[in-house]
């Protein structure tokens, strides 16, 4: 077997020096009656060529977003991924290393994480960012738990219904243990109803959570929400899409205490929804309550600059049940993709991406709403994503357009019955006018 180097002769030789007559001798601690007396019931090994053939057959059943025109969003986006990223992250020295426990032999990884933390801080407008969490949703949940502890145990979380419903489900899972109460705040015309928020926030409120841009693509009045939140002495948590922050005002400038987000749009492949990149940033005074790893600059014995994992007393391997989080393995490689992506796009590129997405989304919205019976569901300003109200069942429309190799959008019924006639459409900078026009054409036929 090509992955197993030791030859039968070597195995014998090793057994001999161990002083065992056979491998069985080494298995003595395992209770005989618990031993598996048959081979595992799995398909037989496939030769490399046959396996590749099998895998290609599987992929042929999936809609490759380069073969289909993708207007799907809802937390994962078909953004431009510059070619160098995959080449660089694939270098074995990055790819096959692990958490940099030995900093002297891991400066490559440590330096890229330090760069990543800086980039996230700049984009979100916060003081410090961690080395990554799993994804946007679990980052949001971790933020809620952090707010709970940072407010000395306040037990309510006010969360806007503009927050991605999938994220809200994850928050619900994470707050089950500490048994926090989640209060949902209704929407006005696409954005959080601030009056209702005001009513919800109280001295029991640990955190207020809004998403910016929100699940429906709309832009919340984060500052107003933050003011209400802070009056109540709670922490303001903003879930965001870092791709938008080259163009949009960073939450840090709008009163956020914790900013989380999904970093997939920063050079991470869609990959059917994972691995993603959990972005997490906060204020300096909260850093010791932060979940996840942190890299810091220091000096070596000769006074030379170097980087290490730091403030580890927050973490599970030291604090165990008192740790700020249970996370160990994070998504360092996705953070590296984002680091390289942001480096390539640089100071002005992300703004350009934002401008293109914004313009194309508005061009699409305008053209689509010219179709009889098709209208924008919400009036609030939006970024690259918007909810369309259709005269025909969104599910049927989606099916029909898929036949024309267009992934039209996300039917909202599963997320909110009251939006059962709505389709969530995302338009990234990758969509061309031609593709948008074809979409409009196809939709206009599908809804008559």
């Amino acid at each position, binding site marked *: 077997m090509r992955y197993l180097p030791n030859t039968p002769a070597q195995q014998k030789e090793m057994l001999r020096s161990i002083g065992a007559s056979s491998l069985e001798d080494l298995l003595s601690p395992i209770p005989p009656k618990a031993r598996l007396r048959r081979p595992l*019931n799995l398909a037989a090994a496939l030769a490399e060529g046959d396996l590749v053939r099998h895998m290609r057959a599987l992929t042929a059943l*999936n809609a490759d977003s380069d073969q289909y025109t993708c207007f799907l969003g809802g937390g994962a986006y078909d953004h431009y991924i510059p070619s160098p990223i995959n080449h660089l992250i694939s270098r074995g020295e990055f790819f096959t290393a692990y958490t940099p426990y030995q900093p002297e032999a891991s400066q490559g990884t440590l330096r890229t994480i330090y760069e990543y933390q800086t980039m996230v801080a700049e984009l979100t407008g916060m003081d410090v960012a961690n080395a990554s969490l799993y994804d946007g949703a679990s980052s949001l949940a971790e933020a809620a738990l952090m707010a709970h502890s940072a407010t000395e145990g306040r037990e309510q979380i006010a969360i806007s219904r503009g927050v991605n419903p999938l994220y809200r489900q994850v928050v619900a899972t994470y707050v089950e243990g500490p048994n926090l109460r989640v209060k949902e705040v209704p929407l006005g015309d696409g954005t959080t109803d601030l009056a209702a928020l005001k009513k919800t926030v109280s001295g029991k409120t640990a955190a207020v959570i809004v998403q910016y841009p929100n699940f429906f693509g709309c832009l919340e009045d984060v500052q107003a929400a933050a003011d209400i939140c802070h009056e109540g002495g709670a922490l303001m948590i903003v879930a965001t899409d870092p791709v938008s922050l080259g163009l949009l005002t960073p939450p840090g400038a709008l009163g956020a205490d914790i900013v989380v987000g999904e970093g997939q749009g920063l050079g991470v492949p869609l990959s*059917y929804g994972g691995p993603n990149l959990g972005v997490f940033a906060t204020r300096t005074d909260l850093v010791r309550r932060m979940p996840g790893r942190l890299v810091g600059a220091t000096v070596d014995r000769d006074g030379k600059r170097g980087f290490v994992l730091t403030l580890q007393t927050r973490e599970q391997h030291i604090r165990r049940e008192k740790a700020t989080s249970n996370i160990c393995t994070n998504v360092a490689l996705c953070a590296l993709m984002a680091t390289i992506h942001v480096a390539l796009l640089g100071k002005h590129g992300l703004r350009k991406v934002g401008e*293109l997405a914004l313009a194309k989304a508005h061009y699409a919205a305008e053209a689509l709403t010219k179709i009889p019976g098709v209208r924008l569901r919400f009036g609030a300003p939006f970024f690259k994503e918007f909810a369309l109200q259709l005269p025909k069942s969104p599910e049927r429309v989606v099916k029909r357009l898929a036949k024309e190799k267009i992934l039209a959008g996300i039917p909202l019924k599963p997320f909110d019955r009251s939006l059962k006639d709505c389709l969530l459409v995302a338009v990234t900078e990758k969509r061309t006018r031609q593709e948008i026009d074809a979409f409009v054409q196809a939709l206009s036929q599908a809804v008559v």
Partner: protein
Amino acid sequence: MSGYDKLIFELSSPGRIGYSLPAPDVPNADPKELLAAKHLRASPPELPEVSEFDVVRHYSRLSQLNYGVDTHFYPLGSCTMKYNPKLNEDMARLGGFARLHPLTPETHSQGALQLMWELARDLAEIAGMDAVSLQPAAGAQGELAGVLMIRAYHLARGERRTKVLVPDSAHGTNPASTAIAGYRVVQLKSDAEGGVDLTDLERNLDEEVAALMITVPNTLGLFEPRILEISEMCHAKGAQLYMDGANLNAILGITRPGDLGFDVCHFNLHKTFTTPHGGGGPGAGPVGVRAHLEPFLPTPVVTKTDDGYALDWNRPQSIGKLQAFWGNFGMLVRAYTYIRTMGPDGLRAVADNAILNANYLMKRLEPHYDLPHPGPCMHECVFSARRQKKLGISAMDVAKRLLDLGFYAPSTYFPLVVEEALMIEPTETESKETLDAFCDAMIQIAREAESTPQVIHDAPVTTPVRRLDQTLAARQPDLRWRPRGG
């Protein structure tokens, strides 16, 4: 380029660009006309302005400052740093996987759903479980999911249990995950042989105990010989038995958590199933359960129906979701590729060779380092540098010296029950030749500890930087780059 000392920000030059974007092909592209000023960023973020080549050379050079499995023996205990097959990478990058949107209609993601369904089925067979969720993003999240399912199970039976028992040898994520799940963690002592202390278990095992969480083989690399007894004791008290599967590599095809009496078990695909560690992640931490816990699995569950594969959201008793989508799919593709490559005999051979390598290494090093728990071990062995410590050489010193000799270091100071712990996991993909070279280096260090300790104290000297000031880093946290004068 071990002399290379730059950060990407320090290569920046105003006006330089590294991206390629099309000109707008739609009318009124001016943001100011589309959004109110308050929504528009006032000043650009302080990000680098570099060329594509600047980026390629910078990160190529940075990579060279790392040790990785592809270039160095990486015996980091408990992490199963085995070879990551390149074929897995090719498969994960196929367009139909890498460019598939998670909310694509099920009619157009059947290949991905089939792969997930088959992988879950195979993992269930490997662990002797009845159902598996692929959603957890890593082992720790698998633990959280597992404990939450146990919690839901007890609650469904009208029982409010409050405690979870965890041995002192457990990995930090075990107590941490348990705490997040809302349980009080009770730490069990390990006995002289490194196993669970049955009397201590007895003492703590009451109707308040929701579960006992143990690692098999445990973090000492030992198989718990009384596991069946323990399982009976727990179940007798209505407690559930959770297996941390981080060390599953050792028992593939030899025995199965389900057959050992476990009710829940998580997998670390980035350990046992060769998905790359990526400098810290991503991984994947599927969780398997026995039938009685199946109703509580995270949503959605991948199911096979007459008209193909589907995501089942209708799970009233589910603990809910752990991440936004279905799991770290890219890692699932790699693990699936690996299982298909190895087949049943191959996987069994993996365990056999992992055990053989660890015992061979243990045997060679036993005369030179203290071995608190004599073998046979399973996939890894834990030495103590306490003998060297008397000579002023700590486990950390040994680790640093290894870096100079061309090897990454074992895990150190874990598990906590062993002082000056050196936790060595060779994995089955390393050859006897490599093990011998590593043992020679370890033995040389043991000798140096007696004869020339200074070379150890000075180590490392061949790395890009020498020993780093951890205290300074923690006392004056410098967690982000700032422009000069900024």
